[in-house]
Each structure stands twice: as structure tokens, then as C-alpha cells.
């Protein structure tokens, strides 16, 4: 007796189903392993280099010894500057797009502009910063130039996040406020923005994480190979963590001997950025759970 052809195809179909799901799991597992390998390797090699002294002293002996304090401080200034520039503009832009703008050519132009800006490579932002802030506006290679360049880079991130947060505010909130005779601007500034604040904060924290890790935009606009003192004004050059990693790994006087310093700096940078991003992800998760409308 010959086997039922329907049963054979069914068996074959279930076999391809099993193979497919196995492939999916294997792919995800491999990605997880690669990620664990990267973080594990950085941590295993980096934690020995980290000490209180490493975090609080400047480099010494032409950057073969000492710590990374000026780079930490520099990254802090650049990041804070970038957010101080991008946050107000980004939020205003999001408010305009969600609350005020009517569909039309101007809004389409804005949307295309924001999308394109989000896709510009970071090194092109560096060129722009060099041509515009450093040379044309004569800010020189400085905290100001670097922060403005990074601010331009994170602007699309902040606009998108703020827009989503504002859209998530229930329409009934606005209607209740308007029904009480409150003007539109007061409704936006007293009702909509405070309600959307946690979401906007998440967006800006993600922006901070992005700005802190970028190297190419600050290479020609702010980053110094080495500075012994901390910056005293916004027109000073600064050291920055990502650039310091690059310099130590590729242009140092003794690349092999300074490996521990490199591992330490990489760990500080990776932990800083991962910590910032994790913080944002956690806040977002917490907010989604805690929402009662």
C-alpha cells in the first residue's frame, strides 16, 4: 500500500516549519552571543585599569600613564552644550508640527528636512561644523563649535521623540482646557507639555547618549589631542572620551604599552553610553506602565 501523499506533504511542511524556527532562534542566539562577547571582552579587560586615580587625574608622561579626567569633563561639557542647544529648538519644532501646523507645503518641507538631517553621516556634520562654526563664525576649535555641531546632529532624534510624546497626550486633555476658555498657547504650555515631559526627557536622554559617543563630528571642531588643564571658557579646546580612545589606539607614542589605558577608557565610554541609554529605556518602560489614561 502506498503512503497517503497528503500525509507526506504535511510531514514535510512541519519539517520546514521546525527548521525555520530553529534558524530564527540560532540567528537571535548568535547576535546575543556577539553582543555578550563585545561587552564581556571590554569589561574583562577594562575593569582592572579603572581606579579612582584613573578617573580623577589627567594623563601624564605623554599620555602613557595617568588618568582620563579631562576627557570625562570635556565629554560632559560637549554633551550638555549639545542638549542645551538642541532641546529647546527640538521641542519647539515638535510643538509646531503637532499642535499648530496645518498640512501643506511648509510642513512637508519641514518633514523632508528633518528626515534628511537624520540621515546625514556624522563626518559630514564634522565638515559642516568645521566650515561654519570653526572657520566662518571664527569660534575656532572649541567647546562651543563642538557642542553646536553635536546639537545639530541630535536635533532630529529629539524632534522625533518630542513629537511622539506630544502626540501621546490624550485629545480630551486639550479639549477640557480649551472648553474652560484657556487660550491655545496656555493649553500647550500648561497642559500638553507638562503631560508630555517624561517622554520628552526620554528623547533628550537618548540624544545625550548619542552625543556622548560620537567621535567624527568633534574631531575637527572641538577635540584636542591633549590638554593639561581643564577648559576655562567655551572657546577652549577639550579632550573627549571617544576621541581619546581613537588617539590612544591609533596615534599614541606607545600603542602596545598603553593598552590598559585604552581598555579602561573604552570601558568608561561604553558603560557611560550604555548606562545613559538603559536609563532612558527604563524610564520609558516605567512611564508606559504607569499611564492611567
Amino acid at each position, binding site marked *: 500500500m502506498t503512503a497517503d501523499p497528503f500525509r507526506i506533504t504535511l510531514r514535510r*511542511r*512541519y519539517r*520546514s*516549519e521546525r527548521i*525555520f*524556527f530553529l534558524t*530564527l532562534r540560532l*540567528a*537571535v542566539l*548568535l*547576535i*546575543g552571543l556577539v*553582543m555578550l562577547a*563585545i561587552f564581556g*571582552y*571590554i569589561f574583562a579587560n577594562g575593569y582592572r585599569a579603572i581606579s579612582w586615580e584613573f578617573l580623577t587625574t589627567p594623563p601624564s608622561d605623554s599620555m602613557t600613564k595617568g588618568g582620563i579626567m579631562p576627557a570625562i569633563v570635556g565629554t560632559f561639557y560637549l554633551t550638555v552644550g549639545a542638549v542645551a542647544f538642541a532641546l529647546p529648538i527640538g521641542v*519647539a*519644532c515638535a*510643538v*509646531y508640527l503637532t499642535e*499648530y*501646523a496645518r498640512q501643506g507645503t511648509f510642513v512637508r*518641507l*519641514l518633514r523632508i528636512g528633518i*528626515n*534628511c*538631517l537624520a*540621515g546625514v*553621516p*556624522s*563626518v*559630514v556634520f*564634522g*565638515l*559642516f561644523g*568645521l*566650515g*561654519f562654526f570653526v*572657520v566662518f563664525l571664527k569660534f575656532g576649535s572649541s567647546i562651543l563649535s563642538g557642542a553646536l555641531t553635536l546639537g*545639530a546632529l541630535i*536635533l*532630529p532624534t529629539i524632534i522625533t521623540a518630542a513629537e511622539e510624546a506630544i502626540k501621546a497626550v490624550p485629545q480630551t486633555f486639550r479639549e477640557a482646557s480649551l472648553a474652560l476658555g484657556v*487660550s*491655545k*498657547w496656555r493649553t500647550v504650555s500648561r497642559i500638553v507639555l507638562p503631560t508630555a515631559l517624561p517622554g520628552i526627557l526620554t528623547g533628550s536622554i537618548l540624544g545625550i547618549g*548619542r552625543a556622548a*559617543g560620537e*567621535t*567624527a563630528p568633534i*574631531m*575637527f571642531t572641538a577635540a584636542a589631542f591633549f590638554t593639561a588643564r581643564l577648559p576655562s571658557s567655551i572657546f577652549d579646546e577639550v579632550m573627549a572620551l*571617544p576621541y581619546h*580612545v581613537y588617539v590612544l*589606539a591609533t596615534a599614541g607614542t606607545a600603542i602596545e604599552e598603553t*593598552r590598559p589605558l585604552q581598555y579602561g577608557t*573604552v570601558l568608561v565610554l*561604553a558603560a557611560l*553610553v550604555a548606562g545613559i*541609554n538603559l536609563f532612558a*529605556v527604563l524610564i520609558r518602560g516605567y512611564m508606559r506602565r504607569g499611564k492611567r489614561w
Partner: protein
Amino acid sequence: MKRQAIERIIHGLLAAVAFTAVAILAMIVLFLFREGLPVFREVSVWGFLFGHEWYPTYDPPSYGIWPLIVASVAVTTLSCLIAVPFGILFAVYVAEAAPPAVKGVLKAVMELLAGLPSVVLGFFGMVVIAPLLQETFDLPTGLNIANASLILSIMAVPTIASISEDALYAVPREFKEASYALGATRYETIVRVVIPAALSGISAAVILGMSRAIGETMVVLMVAGGAAALPTSIFDPARPMTASIAAEMGEAPYKSGHYHALFATGIVLFFLTLAFNLVADYISHRFKEVGSATL
């Protein structure tokens, strides 16, 4: 009356500030051209794009960026060959197969990977992948196209995965239900119904991933090897456009031919990524399934 006037002023102010994003984009184009175009006094557009010799510091200098373009394209293509299958498989798993608890963890993992600074990945490529490649394949250097592609693919996976995942979620439930009702297995439903329905979004994800890879700087600067010659194998060192700009801008004298040539390379890079982004945008809007009503 006064209140209306204030409202109108606020509306105008917000519109003006919102215009900043477009203004910045315009300024980027303006300053790239202002600093980049003067190089075409020394070399023709054709000679710049397709010239085989990039010797910007020689006397007389030679500004042909063809080897840099080829390096960029090679590294990007190779990295996408690795990243596209993994990115899509990851997205399919998260959207269609993962238990809810695992899903949350995986999304957080992807976000951490996406946020990892490129200089950290570049460093990983230098100290781990390079010696590995060098010993395994007995090469003169482990800093080459293969290494850069491998590291870039790690960076491209999160982009491709997260956008593909959104596209998969957007497929209407009814499609899947109809497929199951006809007796299709989950595998058949995913491969024959869900993925084809999400194909426009997935294509957009792939193109955006490529655009990121082409524009990525630190990884290729640190691990691609830096040789400005036409590569003949994936184990040759190469110098993509972004690496060339980042490595040489510090040494190029202000307003020299070299300086202008690097800005002109920036123009090429800008329009290349712009084209990628516009195509991705067009695909995802043009072929979007709005719901069951469109069928």
C-alpha cells in the same frame, strides 16, 4: 483681540524655530559646496570622481577618489550581506515568534547595541578581530575590508532589525488569520504572507542600513587599513571616503587643494546618503499597505 494677536505671534515664532532643521540642512549643503567646489579648479568633476589616483600630498597632487568610492561600496555591500539576513531574522523572531518576556529583553538588547559608540566597536575590531583574521588567513594585516565589513554589520543589524520589526507589526491581523484559516502553517504564513506584505518596509530598512554603513566613520577609519588603492580582494586594506576625510582633515592645510578635495568628498558622501534616504522614504510610503481595505 489682544489674545489673538499674541497667539498669532507665538504661532509665527514656533514656525520660525521649527524651520531651524531645514536651515541647518541648507547650511550643510551651502558650506560643503563653499569649501568643496574650489577643488574643481584643479581637477575636472569626471577626473575627481573616476580618477584612480588619490595622492593629495604629492607634488603635483592628484585628486581621484575612485578608490575611496570603491572601498566605501565594497565595505557597505559586504557588511549588508551579513547584516541583512540577521537583521530580518531577528525582526521576524521578535515580531512573530518570541514570547512576550523575551521580546522585551531582546528589544532592550538591540537598543543597547544600537547605542554602542562606533569608536568602541572600532577598537574591538582592532584588538580582537584583526589578530584573529591575520592568524586564521595568514595575512600581512588584519586591518582590511573583511574586518571593517564584519564590524559594520554589527552596527547595521539594529537599524535593519528595528525598522523591519515595525513593518512586520504593521501587517494587518486579518492577513495572518486568513492564511491560518486556509490551513497554512506558521512558517508558511510568515514567509508567504507576512514578509511579502511587509516587504516595502523591510526594503526601506535595508536601504537605511546601507546608508548608515556608508556614512559610518570611526569603524572604517580604525579597521579598514587605510590604503588608498583599488582593492582586489576582501582581505586588502582599503580607505573608504569617510575614513579619508576623518584621517586627512587634521593634516590638510587650510584652503589648500587637499582641504577642498576632502570637502568635495563630503559632497559626494552627502548626496549618496541623501539618495539612499530619499529612496527608502519613497519605497516605504509608496508601497505601504494601509490596511485590508487596500486589497
